[in-house]
């Protein structure tokens, strides 16, 4: 018995044989176990290849591509300034606080007066001053840090406060200005 050619077997397995070829092959397949088996094998190989060839790509692949295609524009000077505004404001505040500490640690009960007569700002500033004095008193009485004098304790306390304030303000302002510029 003459068997089907491999090409015909593949075409039958793929379901793309011409009608005449299909008819002839079907007549042969009624009698030929071997060719039926070959068709089964080819169908199986294709099915397995389609189902099984799953290729994993690294998790950040898409991100890498999107980053590569994103336009890289040079930032303008005011955008750079806005992006660094957090640092600038935080630094100014810390310098202000440190200046204020030196006035407190000098020992006098400093009061702040505004020549413009802006009562609200003056009251707020004095409230802060009073709050700071109360905080210092609390610190001295309750916190078990032994220092040679109150000036050292004040420096430690305000140093810690300055770091926390710097970090918080920087995060908040960086976030705000990033949203503004992006």
């Amino acid at each position, binding site marked *: 018995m003459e068997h089907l050619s*491999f*090409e015909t077997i593949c075409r039958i397995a793929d379901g793309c044989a011409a009608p005449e070829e299909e008819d002839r092959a079907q007549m042969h397949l009624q009698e030929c176990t*071997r060719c039926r088996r070959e068709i089964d*094998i080819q169908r199986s190989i294709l*099915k*397995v290849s389609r189902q099984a060839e799953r290729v994993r790509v690294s998790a950040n692949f*898409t991100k*890498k591509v999107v980053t590569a*295609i994103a336009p890289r524009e040079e930032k303008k000077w005011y955008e750079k300034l806005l992006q660094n505004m957090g640092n600038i404001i935080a630094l100014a505040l810390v310098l202000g606080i440190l200046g204020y500490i030196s006035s407190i640690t000098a020992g006098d009960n400093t009061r702040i007066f505004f020549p413009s007569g802006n009562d609200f700002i003056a009251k707020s500033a004095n409230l802060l001053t009073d709050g700071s004095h109360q905080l210092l008193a609390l610190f001295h009485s309750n916190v078990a840090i032994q220092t040679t004098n109150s000036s050292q304790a004040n420096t430690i306390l305000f140093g810690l406060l300055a770091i926390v304030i710097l970090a918080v303000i920087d995060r908040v302002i960086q976030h705000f200005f990033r949203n503004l510029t992006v």
Partner: protein
Amino acid sequence: MDETDKQIIERVMGGDARAFGRLVDRHKAKAMAVALRILRNREEAEEALQDAFVRMYKALSSFEWKSSFSTWLYRIVYNTCITALGRRSEIERREIDSDEEYDLPGAIESDELQPDMRVESDEVEKIVLGEIDKLPASYGTTFTLFAVQEMSYEEIVDVMGLPLGTVKARIFRARMMLRNAVARRLGDRVVLLKDKKEH
């Protein structure tokens, strides 16, 4: 409802570069299969694939929908990988890119398969996967486009830029090699052909 490739591309063309990420997500796994088949090295394949997607992004405005999007994508992936392969070895590049005509295999000569033999899908899967990796890169790539990407011969011709006869011969030869491997490994076994979903 899922967006079609065309809808995503229209968004990308409209200035939404991030939508391109969805297109990448949709096609990266199958495109990686082709890249890996050509380059046989995961890192190089991923690098070439990334390069291919960037090239595709840059060329999107020139795509005219005369061929299917996936054919166009695989052509870019294929060419990028061939270029990468060329950097590695001229011999390897020539081997995969050769358009030399092969004779199609005729009737099956070997008779390792016994009349009562059938094929178990799990075993065939193991054998076929192992054997696909052993195929010469030219056959493996062509077979992957045919079997995994389910492309027609004509689409593969379009992707690889090879004559139809070469493409057909490579696919038939790959299938013959896989068939022979299955027959060699399971020659004396009685196993059953099952649909994978039944397991």
